[in-house]
């Protein structure tokens, strides 16, 4: 229905465009002044004609309008009897947080910037925000819907085919609005279950990764804003938000528990590989200026904005992050 409405709309627009522009250009050329023209006939209007071109567009427009409203109501809710996957999506400056209260078998999950969903099952989102207004938009799957603080906006969609669907914040939300992207990754039911089951299981860490783990909680103080071992409770996120609002060096940061299962990082803008992660940890402001990690984290309060870490410490952190599956 929706696709048909778009097609008809485009055709109606195209036909009206061609007719009206043609008549305009025809009149503009045909009736141009030629030397010796007498004064043209001084007509003042034609009531029949004018009433006709008021009423005909009204009918056309009302027809389109009523049909749009019908389509609008049809697409409001997921099909009756389907069992949609419930997800809470929260916008942050400048990344997306996804909470699955019940991803599968009662297990809850917090992840960021990559929304993994099973193919062929409707997804029902509650869209929220902890700071400014954002907008959740995956063009190929659904129209956009704003994430407004103080509100919970519903949106549903379903991916019919497996794939990587590009998404993007569509409401201006500050410095890095342009770099606030994400993706919906539609995978088979088995793969989805595998991801859910693997989530938060302690990964096996190499010696270097273990050093990284210590830095994550210790010298790096990453843990202030990022969790890496399981979902975030609502209270934890709220504490981080309150800390930010009161001016402390803390803000909500993406949950990294399953970072190594994501294709990209930093809100969908860089490929997740060791080299990029190393650049990012060394100086995030150079890769995404204005981000709160550079502004707030103690280790970046240096002259050149480079992390107060040795190269081997950065490498250990990367090694740790790369093993979070």
């Amino acid at each position, binding site marked *: 229905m929706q696709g048909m409405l778009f097609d008809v709309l485009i055709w109606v627009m195209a036909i009206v465009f061609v007719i009206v522009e043609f008549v305009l250009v025809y009149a503009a050329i045909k009736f141009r002044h030629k030397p010796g023209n007498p004064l043209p006939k001084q*007509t003042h209007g034609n009531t029949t004609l004018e009433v006709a071109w008021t009423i005909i567009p009204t009918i056309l427009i009302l027809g389109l309008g009523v049909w749009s409203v019908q389509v*609008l109501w049809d697409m409001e809710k997921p099909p009756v009897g389907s069992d949609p996957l419930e997800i809470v999506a929260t916008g942050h400056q400048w990344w997306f947080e996804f909470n699955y209260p019940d991803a599968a078998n009662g297990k809850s999950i917090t992840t960021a910037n990559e929304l993994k969903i099973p193919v062929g099952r409707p997804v029902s989102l509650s869209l929220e925000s902890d700071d400014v207004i954002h907008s959740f938009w995956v063009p190929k799957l659904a129209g956009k819907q*704003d994430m407004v603080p103080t509100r919970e906006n519903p949106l549903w969609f379903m991916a019919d085919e497996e794939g990587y669907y590009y998404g993007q914040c569509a409401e201006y939300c500050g410095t890095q609005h342009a770099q606030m992207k994400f993706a919906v990754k539609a995978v088979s039911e088995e793969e989805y279950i595998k991801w859910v089951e693997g989530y938060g299981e302690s990964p096996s860490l190499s010696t270097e990764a273990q050093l990284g783990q210590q830095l994550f909680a210790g010298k790096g103080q990453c843990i202030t804003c990022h969790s890496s071992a399981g979902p975030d409770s609502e209270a934890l996120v709220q504490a981080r938000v309150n800390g930010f609002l009161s001016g402390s060096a803390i803000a909500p940061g993406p949950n990294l528990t399953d970072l190594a299962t994501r294709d990209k990082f930093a809100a969908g803008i860089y490929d997740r590989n060791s080299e990029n992660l190393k650049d990012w940890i060394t100086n995030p402001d150079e890769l995404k200026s204005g981000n709160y990690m550079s502004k707030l984290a103690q280790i970046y309060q240096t002259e050149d904005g480079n992390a107060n870490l040795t190269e081997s410490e950065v490498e250990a952190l990367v090694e740790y992050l790369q093993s979070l599956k």
Partner: protein
Amino acid sequence: MATIATKQSEGNTFSVIWSWITTVDHKRIGILYFVTAFIMFLVAGIEAGIMRMQLATPGGNLVSPDVYNQMFTMHGTTMVFFAIMPLNAAFFNYIIPLAIGARDVAFPRLNAFSYWTFLASVLFMNFGFIVGSVPDGGWFAYAPLSEQPYSSNQGMEFWSIGLMLAAVSSAVAGLNFVVTIVNLRAPGMTLMRMPVSVWMFFVVQILLAFAIPVIAVGLIELTMDRLFGTLFFVTSAGGDPVLWQHLFWIFGHPEVYILILPPMGIISDVLPAFAKKPLFGYPFIVFSGIAIGLMGWAVWSHHMFTVGLGPIAVSVFTITTMLIAVPTGVKIFNWIGTLWGGSIEYKSAMLFAVGFIAMFIIGGLSGVSHAVAPSDYQQQDTYYIIAHLHYVLFGGAILGIFSGIYFWFPKVTGKLLSEKLGKLHFWITFVGLNLTFFPMHYLGMNGMPRRIYTYATEFGWDNLNALSSFGYIVLFVSMLIFVYNIIKSYKSGEEAGHDPWDAPGLEWTITSPPPVYNFSELPVVEGRDPYWIVKRRAVAEGKEIPGPQPLVDPSTVHLPDPSYWPIFTSVALLILAIGFMIEIPVWFVKYPISVVGGLLVFVGVLAWSNEPPTKEKDH
């Protein structure tokens, strides 16, 4: 400007400047509006250029993200409030009294106050560039992004307080012109004999008088939040961000018609003058304008389809928005009807008027596609919207304004603009605007969001962006040609005479430029297109076509005296505004400079009301 001044008041440079500062002559105020607004139009154009150059290539790094965000905030704000609105105001000022056969507006000093307050708001907001606190919350300033702590420098204060000054200016100007049009029409100039330009200007004044207070409420609340710790839109304390959006768009959608109705009126005067036949369906055009003015109040939430208002609200606003296309369509059909059967002379003014219709059709049709909410869910906040609004505001408003400039420039200066340069200007503008804005339809449908300072090459937006940026350069060249034309024609243009176009309006029955008193004898209007009636009767009777009204000694005509109280009061308002930017706590007063400014405003208004409009000796 200076030469016009010396024609009206002999004397040294100081007295010339003083005569402009204290002027209450609607024609001079119109010229001041035009010059200021046109400069701001160029400034906002350069801001657009910085954006287009940044986006010319993927991953462009001409400016930082923050500077880019400042550019689109100031481009939008400046174009709407400091370019198109005051360019329209230039026409209101200059043309309304001439076209209705009046000697000035109803409240000449209030008119001067409107201009000076407008200038104060321009200077105030752009002062942010000098102190490095440029507004960056978008021209719509959605809360809570426009609130602390998300916008922590003084940029949004420059924006909100600056716009309050502009709001004062527009609101009093609106009331002034309503009173002028209702009360000061020449004998015989009934409402249904008024030129359509004046009709559309009239509708806009009423919209201004009602819409400006709505944005003023929002601006006051936002400023109170930022300066005095109120919580209207502070979401972390339970404030409602959607309230701001309602206030903004209840003003914002009538504002769209405040921008576009005056150019619609202008071309409704230009088309008959060059087609040599009366406007087709005058009552339909007038009443469709009034209908647009009324219906414009019932469509604002189509800017908010994705906010989550629920399907009932979205359905209602889908239908109301759809319906507003009807009166707009009626206007287009009637304009084409005016051309039909005419003998069209393609002077530059006429080219721009026909160009307006051709471009406005595109903007109107893409507008219908936004009204269809399911399709707007995809289009909202993409380049498709940018394409739409620029076809309406550039292809529509700006082309209409250019049409008006070519049409009335000879009346204002007594010189004709060069037709050769004018036609060149038109065609380059026409090509440039389509190159710049047409590709944006495709960019939007391919998913390019608005307000992004960069994009990656993988999305395939590179070529269309490059084309659009190239179009900007074409537009830039066309503006240079226009500015050159204005300067050259003003200095050494052909003498225009009083009626270069054989036009129908009253303004063409007096000399160019008009004398300070406009009409030595108030004209008596016998019908629509009054000057045509007079001229054609003369031709039919084989008599000589009556020339312009003879000039008389200005001191014999009753005119208001110049006054410095309007500019005094505007400067006092500016001091009041500046005071809020400088916190000097004295006892319990946080902003003492504002208190001083407020007292000065009071002094200014008091002195102004006690000043007689003319000295006793004149009576």
